[in-house]
Protein backbone atom coordinates (compact mmCIF):
# COMPACT_ATOMS: atom_id res chain seq x y z
CA UNK A 1 0.00 0.00 0.00
CA UNK A 2 1.22 3.50 -0.71
CA UNK A 3 -0.06 6.54 1.10
CA UNK A 4 0.39 9.99 -0.36
CA UNK A 5 1.40 12.04 2.66
CA UNK A 6 0.24 15.59 1.89
CA UNK A 7 3.60 16.83 3.13
CA UNK A 8 6.07 14.20 1.95
CA UNK A 9 4.44 12.67 -1.10
CA UNK A 10 3.70 9.03 -1.74
CA UNK A 11 5.33 6.58 0.63
CA UNK A 12 5.06 2.87 1.33
CA UNK A 13 2.85 1.94 4.25
CA UNK A 14 5.80 0.65 6.27
CA UNK A 15 6.55 4.28 7.15
CA UNK A 16 3.14 4.72 8.78
CA UNK A 17 1.36 3.37 11.81
CA UNK A 18 -2.35 2.92 12.04
CA UNK A 19 -4.75 4.01 14.69
CA UNK A 20 -8.17 3.23 13.25
CA UNK A 21 -11.51 4.75 12.46
CA UNK A 22 -11.43 8.56 12.43
CA UNK A 23 -15.17 8.84 12.95
CA UNK A 24 -15.43 8.48 16.73
CA UNK A 25 -14.71 11.85 18.32
CA UNK A 26 -13.45 12.24 21.84
CA UNK A 27 -16.31 13.59 23.94
CA UNK A 28 -15.63 17.14 25.01
CA UNK A 29 -15.73 17.68 28.74
CA UNK A 30 -15.55 21.34 29.67
CA UNK A 31 -16.05 21.43 33.40
CA UNK A 32 -14.91 18.94 35.97
CA UNK A 33 -16.16 19.00 39.52
CA UNK A 34 -14.86 16.55 42.07
CA UNK A 35 -13.48 14.33 39.36
CA UNK A 36 -16.74 14.18 37.44
CA UNK A 37 -17.73 15.78 34.18
CA UNK A 38 -20.98 15.79 32.32
CA UNK A 39 -23.96 13.51 32.80
CA UNK A 40 -23.66 10.34 30.75
CA UNK A 41 -19.99 10.81 30.04
CA UNK A 42 -19.19 7.18 30.79
CA UNK A 43 -21.57 6.02 28.06
CA UNK A 44 -20.16 8.55 25.64
CA UNK A 45 -16.60 7.46 26.34
CA UNK A 46 -17.55 3.78 26.14
CA UNK A 47 -18.79 4.41 22.62
CA UNK A 48 -15.75 6.48 21.74
CA UNK A 49 -13.23 4.01 23.08
CA UNK A 50 -14.84 0.69 22.21
CA UNK A 51 -17.59 0.67 19.61
CA UNK A 52 -16.68 0.67 15.94
CA UNK A 53 -18.64 0.69 12.70
CA UNK A 54 -15.89 -1.53 11.29
CA UNK A 55 -16.87 -0.42 7.83
CA UNK A 56 -16.61 -2.78 4.89
CA UNK A 57 -16.04 -0.17 2.22
CA UNK A 58 -14.93 3.43 2.35
CA UNK A 59 -13.68 4.51 5.71
CA UNK A 60 -11.84 7.53 7.10
CA UNK A 61 -9.03 6.55 9.37
CA UNK A 62 -6.05 7.90 11.24
CA UNK A 63 -2.55 7.07 10.08
CA UNK A 64 0.64 8.48 11.57
CA UNK A 65 3.64 9.20 9.39
CA UNK A 66 6.04 8.31 12.19
CA UNK A 67 8.67 7.08 9.74
CA UNK A 68 8.64 10.49 8.06
CA UNK A 69 7.30 13.90 9.03
CA UNK A 70 5.39 12.79 12.17
CA UNK A 71 2.09 14.10 10.88
CA UNK A 72 -1.23 12.54 11.69
CA UNK A 73 -3.25 11.98 8.57
CA UNK A 74 -6.87 11.26 7.80
CA UNK A 75 -6.89 8.67 5.06
CA UNK A 76 -10.04 7.73 3.22
CA UNK A 77 -9.58 4.14 2.18
CA UNK A 78 -11.69 1.26 0.97
CA UNK A 79 -11.30 -1.64 3.36
CA UNK A 80 -12.51 -4.10 0.74
CA UNK A 81 -9.96 -3.17 -1.91
CA UNK A 82 -7.31 -1.16 -0.03
CA UNK A 83 -7.84 1.61 -2.57
CA UNK A 84 -6.93 4.99 -1.12
CA UNK A 85 -9.39 7.68 -2.08
CA UNK A 86 -7.93 10.69 -0.35
CA UNK A 87 -5.37 11.72 2.21
CA UNK A 88 -5.66 14.83 4.31
CA UNK A 89 -3.64 16.25 7.14
CA UNK A 90 -5.14 16.14 10.64
CA UNK A 91 -6.39 19.58 11.68
CA UNK A 92 -3.44 20.37 13.93
CA UNK A 93 -0.43 19.40 11.87
CA UNK A 94 2.38 21.92 11.62
CA UNK A 95 1.50 25.44 12.64
CA UNK A 96 -2.03 25.20 11.35
CA UNK A 97 -4.51 27.31 13.26
CA UNK A 98 -7.76 25.67 14.08
CA UNK A 99 -10.88 27.62 14.75
CA UNK A 100 -11.61 26.67 18.33
CA UNK A 101 -15.34 26.76 17.84
CA UNK A 102 -15.02 24.55 14.80
CA UNK A 103 -12.73 22.22 16.65
CA UNK A 104 -15.18 21.88 19.50
CA UNK A 105 -18.03 21.31 17.12
CA UNK A 106 -15.98 18.57 15.59
CA UNK A 107 -15.26 16.91 18.89
CA UNK A 108 -18.70 17.06 20.41
Amino acid at each position, binding site marked *: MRIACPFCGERENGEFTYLGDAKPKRPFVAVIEDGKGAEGEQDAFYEYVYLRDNVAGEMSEYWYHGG*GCRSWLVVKRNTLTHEILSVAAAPGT*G*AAVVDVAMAKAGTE
Partner: protein
Amino acid sequence: MVDFVWNVRSPLQQAVMPGRAGAIVPFAGVKLAEIRDFDLVQIFARRGQREATAKAVKKHYGVDAPAPRQAVSAKGATLIWSGPDQLMALSARKPGTFRPVDALRESFEGIASLSDQSDGRCLIRMSGLQARAMLAKLTSVDLHDSVFPVGTAATTSIDHTAVNLWRSENSEDGSPVFNVLVFSSFADSIWHTIVDAAAEYGIEIETRSAASV
Protein backbone atom coordinates in the same frame (compact mmCIF):
# COMPACT_ATOMS: atom_id res chain seq x y z
CA MET B 1 41.56 19.86 42.19
CA VAL B 2 42.09 18.46 38.77
CA ASP B 3 40.59 20.28 35.88
CA PHE B 4 38.35 18.51 33.51
CA VAL B 5 38.83 17.94 29.83
CA TRP B 6 35.74 17.64 27.73
CA ASN B 7 36.65 15.57 24.73
CA VAL B 8 34.08 15.18 22.04
CA ARG B 9 33.19 11.69 20.94
CA SER B 10 31.09 11.02 17.85
CA PRO B 11 28.66 8.09 17.97
CA LEU B 12 30.41 7.01 14.76
CA GLN B 13 33.88 7.20 16.23
CA GLN B 14 34.31 3.47 16.32
CA ALA B 15 32.39 2.58 13.18
CA VAL B 16 33.97 4.99 10.72
CA MET B 17 37.34 3.80 9.58
CA PRO B 18 38.74 6.11 6.91
CA GLY B 19 40.11 4.31 3.89
CA ARG B 20 38.76 1.72 1.51
CA ALA B 21 36.21 -0.97 2.28
CA GLY B 22 34.12 -3.52 0.46
CA ALA B 23 34.88 -4.85 -2.98
CA ILE B 24 38.35 -4.20 -4.32
CA VAL B 25 37.83 -2.09 -7.42
CA PRO B 26 39.91 0.64 -9.05
CA PHE B 27 37.41 3.39 -8.36
CA ALA B 28 35.13 3.19 -5.38
CA GLY B 29 31.53 3.27 -6.49
CA VAL B 30 30.42 4.86 -3.23
CA LYS B 31 32.06 7.52 -1.13
CA LEU B 32 30.96 7.85 2.45
CA ALA B 33 31.85 10.69 4.76
CA GLU B 34 30.88 11.39 8.30
CA ILE B 35 30.51 15.14 8.69
CA ARG B 36 31.32 16.24 12.21
CA ASP B 37 31.21 19.43 14.27
CA PHE B 38 27.91 20.87 13.21
CA ASP B 39 25.11 22.65 14.99
CA LEU B 40 21.58 21.62 14.23
CA VAL B 41 18.48 23.40 15.46
CA GLN B 42 14.95 22.42 14.75
CA ILE B 43 12.77 25.45 14.06
CA PHE B 44 9.10 24.69 14.50
CA ALA B 45 6.60 27.43 13.79
CA ARG B 46 4.06 28.12 16.49
CA ARG B 47 0.36 28.01 15.86
CA GLY B 48 -0.54 30.69 13.37
CA GLN B 49 3.06 31.78 12.94
CA ARG B 50 3.82 30.15 9.64
CA GLU B 51 4.33 33.40 7.74
CA ALA B 52 6.05 35.10 10.65
CA THR B 53 8.46 32.19 10.89
CA ALA B 54 9.15 32.35 7.17
CA LYS B 55 9.90 36.05 7.53
CA ALA B 56 12.15 35.44 10.49
CA VAL B 57 14.03 32.78 8.56
CA LYS B 58 14.50 35.14 5.67
CA LYS B 59 15.70 37.86 7.98
CA HIS B 60 18.04 35.63 9.94
CA TYR B 61 19.48 33.56 7.14
CA GLY B 62 19.00 35.81 4.16
CA VAL B 63 17.19 33.20 2.10
CA ASP B 64 13.63 32.06 1.79
CA ALA B 65 12.67 29.27 4.13
CA PRO B 66 12.77 25.95 2.29
CA ALA B 67 9.55 24.99 0.60
CA PRO B 68 8.20 21.56 1.47
CA ARG B 69 10.62 18.81 0.40
CA GLN B 70 13.42 21.30 -0.24
CA ALA B 71 16.80 22.03 1.23
CA VAL B 72 18.34 25.47 0.64
CA SER B 73 21.79 26.82 1.19
CA ALA B 74 22.10 30.04 3.09
CA LYS B 75 25.15 31.93 4.20
CA GLY B 76 26.71 29.71 6.81
CA ALA B 77 23.83 27.30 7.02
CA THR B 78 21.77 24.76 5.17
CA LEU B 79 18.06 24.86 5.86
CA ILE B 80 16.36 21.53 5.46
CA TRP B 81 12.60 21.15 5.42
CA SER B 82 11.72 18.50 7.97
CA GLY B 83 7.93 18.45 8.15
CA PRO B 84 5.00 20.82 7.98
CA ASP B 85 6.15 24.23 9.25
CA GLN B 86 9.36 22.72 10.52
CA LEU B 87 12.91 22.98 9.34
CA MET B 88 16.37 22.02 10.46
CA ALA B 89 19.08 24.66 10.41
CA LEU B 90 22.44 23.02 9.91
CA SER B 91 25.65 24.99 10.30
CA ALA B 92 29.30 24.50 11.13
CA ARG B 93 29.80 24.60 14.89
CA LYS B 94 31.26 27.70 16.39
CA PRO B 95 33.88 26.59 18.89
CA GLY B 96 32.87 26.98 22.51
CA THR B 97 29.12 27.15 21.97
CA PHE B 98 26.94 24.79 23.91
CA ARG B 99 23.59 26.30 23.11
CA PRO B 100 23.21 27.03 19.40
CA VAL B 101 19.61 27.90 20.17
CA ASP B 102 20.77 31.05 21.96
CA ALA B 103 21.92 32.62 18.72
CA LEU B 104 18.47 32.15 17.21
CA ARG B 105 16.32 32.98 20.17
CA GLU B 106 15.96 36.63 19.46
CA SER B 107 14.97 36.10 15.84
CA PHE B 108 12.31 33.52 16.66
CA GLU B 109 11.04 34.59 20.09
CA GLY B 110 7.32 33.88 20.32
CA ILE B 111 7.22 32.85 16.67
CA ALA B 112 8.79 29.43 16.57
CA SER B 113 9.89 26.82 19.05
CA LEU B 114 13.54 25.90 18.89
CA SER B 115 15.02 22.57 19.82
CA ASP B 116 18.72 21.83 19.83
CA GLN B 117 19.40 18.63 17.90
CA SER B 118 23.13 19.13 17.33
CA ASP B 119 23.89 15.95 19.23
CA GLY B 120 20.70 14.18 18.40
CA ARG B 121 21.82 13.40 14.86
CA CYS B 122 24.83 12.22 12.92
CA LEU B 123 25.38 13.42 9.40
CA ILE B 124 26.51 11.04 6.69
CA ARG B 125 27.27 12.16 3.17
CA MET B 126 27.08 9.69 0.31
CA SER B 127 28.34 10.24 -3.18
CA GLY B 128 29.84 8.33 -6.07
CA LEU B 129 28.53 6.80 -9.23
CA GLN B 130 26.78 4.00 -7.34
CA ALA B 131 25.44 6.09 -4.47
CA ARG B 132 21.95 6.02 -5.91
CA ALA B 133 22.00 2.26 -6.46
CA MET B 134 23.19 1.83 -2.89
CA LEU B 135 20.50 4.13 -1.50
CA ALA B 136 17.84 2.20 -3.37
CA LYS B 137 18.55 -0.60 -0.89
CA LEU B 138 17.96 1.69 2.07
CA THR B 139 15.09 3.99 1.24
CA SER B 140 11.82 3.66 -0.59
CA VAL B 141 12.09 7.23 -1.90
CA ASP B 142 12.49 7.53 -5.66
CA LEU B 143 15.86 9.23 -6.15
CA HIS B 144 15.68 9.55 -9.93
CA ASP B 145 16.89 12.91 -11.28
CA SER B 146 13.43 13.77 -12.49
CA VAL B 147 11.89 13.23 -9.07
CA PHE B 148 14.70 14.05 -6.69
CA PRO B 149 16.83 16.79 -8.24
CA VAL B 150 19.51 18.73 -6.41
CA GLY B 151 17.94 20.57 -3.48
CA THR B 152 15.27 17.98 -2.73
CA ALA B 153 14.74 16.90 0.86
CA ALA B 154 12.75 14.05 2.35
CA THR B 155 11.85 12.75 5.75
CA THR B 156 11.82 9.00 5.44
CA SER B 157 13.06 5.84 7.11
CA ILE B 158 16.13 3.66 6.94
CA ASP B 159 16.00 0.40 8.90
CA HIS B 160 12.60 1.50 10.27
CA THR B 161 14.23 4.61 11.72
CA ALA B 162 13.27 8.13 10.70
CA VAL B 163 15.96 10.11 8.87
CA ASN B 164 16.29 13.39 6.99
CA LEU B 165 17.63 12.91 3.51
CA TRP B 166 18.53 15.64 1.06
CA ARG B 167 20.49 16.04 -2.12
CA SER B 168 23.17 18.70 -2.48
CA GLU B 169 25.17 19.85 -5.50
CA ASN B 170 26.66 17.08 -7.62
CA SER B 171 30.24 16.15 -6.97
CA GLU B 172 32.99 16.96 -9.44
CA ASP B 173 32.64 13.67 -11.29
CA GLY B 174 29.01 14.52 -11.88
CA SER B 175 27.69 11.94 -9.46
CA PRO B 176 24.89 12.86 -7.10
CA VAL B 177 25.53 13.74 -3.47
CA PHE B 178 23.09 12.70 -0.78
CA ASN B 179 23.12 13.68 2.87
CA VAL B 180 21.39 11.85 5.62
CA LEU B 181 20.80 12.88 9.22
CA VAL B 182 20.29 9.84 11.42
CA PHE B 183 19.51 9.64 15.13
CA SER B 184 22.77 9.48 17.05
CA SER B 185 21.91 6.37 19.02
CA PHE B 186 21.17 4.53 15.76
CA ALA B 187 24.17 5.90 13.89
CA ASP B 188 26.59 3.05 14.51
CA SER B 189 24.00 0.49 13.45
CA ILE B 190 22.85 2.39 10.37
CA TRP B 191 26.43 3.03 9.33
CA HIS B 192 26.99 -0.72 9.21
CA THR B 193 23.81 -1.15 7.20
CA ILE B 194 25.04 1.48 4.73
CA VAL B 195 28.44 -0.13 4.44
CA ASP B 196 26.84 -3.52 3.80
CA ALA B 197 24.67 -2.00 1.09
CA ALA B 198 27.64 -0.28 -0.52
CA ALA B 199 30.17 -3.09 -0.18
CA GLU B 200 29.65 -4.59 -3.62
CA TYR B 201 30.50 -1.27 -5.29
CA GLY B 202 33.69 -0.59 -3.34
CA ILE B 203 33.71 2.17 -0.73
CA GLU B 204 35.93 5.10 0.12
CA ILE B 205 35.41 6.37 3.65
CA GLU B 206 36.44 9.65 5.27
CA THR B 207 35.52 12.00 8.06
CA ARG B 208 35.21 15.73 7.57
CA SER B 209 34.48 18.72 9.67
CA ALA B 210 31.35 20.63 8.80
CA ALA B 211 33.48 23.76 8.49
CA SER B 212 35.35 22.20 5.58
CA VAL B 213 32.29 21.15 3.61
